[in-house]
């Protein structure tokens, strides 16, 4: 059995492919898109306000955490004596550098596969 189709039935499907009048369908789709977009903006604003309020109320937990993450990411993996060498090698001689290279590698592998 192959993918061959009954020609009569194919013609019937083509003939029955009537044009459906829009009757406001496109408008409803656009309105639904607008509603979703408005809702997404409202959620983002609410989250931002909540973050600011929490920062003010709880002695900046987010700022403290971000400072901690920055410290960890910039931590050198190997100690370099010379100051200018330390600056020069910082992009790769740090936790952030290794993570960046790892992510780049994973991205390349993903692109190869897909």
């Amino acid at each position, binding site marked *: *059995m192959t993918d061959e189709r*009954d020609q009569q039935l194919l013609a019937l499907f083509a003939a*029955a*492919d009537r044009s459906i009048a829009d009757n406001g369908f*496109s408008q409803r*789709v*656009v309105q639904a898109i607008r509603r979703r977009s408005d809702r997404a903006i409202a959620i983002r604003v609410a989250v931002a306000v909540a973050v600011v309020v929490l920062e003010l109320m709880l002695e900046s937990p987010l700022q403290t955490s971000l400072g901690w993450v920055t410290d960890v990411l910039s931590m050198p993996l190997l100690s370099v004596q010379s100051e200018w060498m330390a600056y020069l090698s910082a992009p790769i001689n740090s936790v952030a550098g290794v993570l960046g290279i790892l992510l780049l590698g994973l991205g390349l592998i993903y692109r190869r596969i897909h």
Partner: protein
Amino acid sequence: MNEHLQHYRQGPEGLVVRLAMRGDRDAFAELVRRRQSWVRNLMRRLCRHEADADDLSQRVFLKAWRNIKSIQQPEKFQGWLKRLAVNTWIDEQRKQQRRWSETLDEASVAAATSDASVQMDLDKALAELPPAVRACVVLSYHVRLSHRDIAEATGLPLGTVKSHTQRGAARLRELMIGYGEDQ
């Protein structure tokens, strides 16, 4: 009508798609206007109820808006939308946990033809077929997917897809007797 909307109406589809990919809602509305008939026709053939079909069609376009930036070739928007429509319908079937019988239910197909002499339009005739058979016939004849693609999309075994399509088409021909002669 605004002048730019007039331009969209006359513009080539590839260009309108590119504008929609940049977030232009008017351009996307034009794409919906151009393609709504095909998508709604497909959904009406797959679903039994018009209202359900239109709900699903709307969902297809909402998904299209969300994912439009992922289109690789804007000129092939129609094919992309076709796949999206079929996947949306299949996802809906999975959500409803519809378990399609893998064997063709001869009794239910035969029982559906109690008044075969009456002229029926294609949508009504399709509605008489069991869901899995209808799906295979519509995906094969309306969307023109290959048996292999239908099997992949629906999760039905290839042999089942072939037999559903062939026997569904045969039943459809019986149901539609007289239709072609009067056209």
